[in-house]
């Protein structure tokens, strides 16, 4: 999997509800399409996305085949204080990518 992109606000205050935007390159193959020989292209999608803050899961997305290629996911969090985000994308078959980013709290 390719390196994902994550957008956090430049700074936040404690108690503020911030929006976190994430995107990752992935063709999200549905398992419904056929190749030129008429064989079904096996399903391979990112089926899970987890965002944890200081080790505590905040948001989980269980993705189905109905999510577009290069999945974009934006969600919110109420800032408890400074800390580190850990985002994990997992595809069919278990391969995963993790991205860490520090949230600056004013």
């Amino acid at each position, binding site marked *: 999997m390719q390196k994902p992109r994550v957008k956090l606000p430049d700074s936040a205050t404690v108690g503020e*509800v*911030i929006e976190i935007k994430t995107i990752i390159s992935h063709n999200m193959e*549905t398992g*419904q*399409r056929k190749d030129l020989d008429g064989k079904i292209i096996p399903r391979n999608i990112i089926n899970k996305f987890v965002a944890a*803050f200081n080790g*505590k*899961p*905040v*948001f*989980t*997305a*269980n*993705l*189905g*085949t*109905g*999510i*577009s*290629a290069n*999945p*974009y*996911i*934006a*969600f*919110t*969090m*109420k800032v*408890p204080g400074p800390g580190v985000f850990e985002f994990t994308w997992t595809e069919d078959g278990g391969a995963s990518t993790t991205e860490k980013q520090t949230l600056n709290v004013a």
Partner: protein
Amino acid sequence: MASRMKLDRKALARREVLLGAGGVVLLSTFLPRAFAEDKSVPVATPLPMSTPPAAWQDAIKAILGEATPLPGKIAMDVPEIAENGNTVPFNISVESPMSEAEYVKALHIVSTGNPLPQIGAFEFSPQSGKAQVSSRMRLGKTQEIVALAQMSDGKFYMTKRTVKVTIGGCGG
């Protein structure tokens, strides 16, 4: 010379076909709207509830279990008309104080017209602050999108929205 004639005729025929196709596209974009305003004309209703395909009904049943969903609480921001079914943006939020005592556990999104009904299930926690998610979905054709919110007290809320799709997102 004969071959030239044939070529010209072919080109002409193609032009006619193109014109015809243009006409059909124009018709299909404007007719449904014109009809929608005139209530006396029957319109092809998007997926009547009386004959739903089994797959998405089963998917909803699997989420709900024995619970009966209540109306309201969910705000669905989806386009009325999606030009490209491959990427249809959505922003769905659920009204909730998001406190430890009362929060939205999960938001399920089900397609009623795709070959596979699962779009996504998003899990929140009180730390989420708001029960809100934005992403992009694939829609194979014009259909209803169902959003189901699962609350921390076990209640469910359900909202539906119809999205008209001009070009399907399933290789069609």
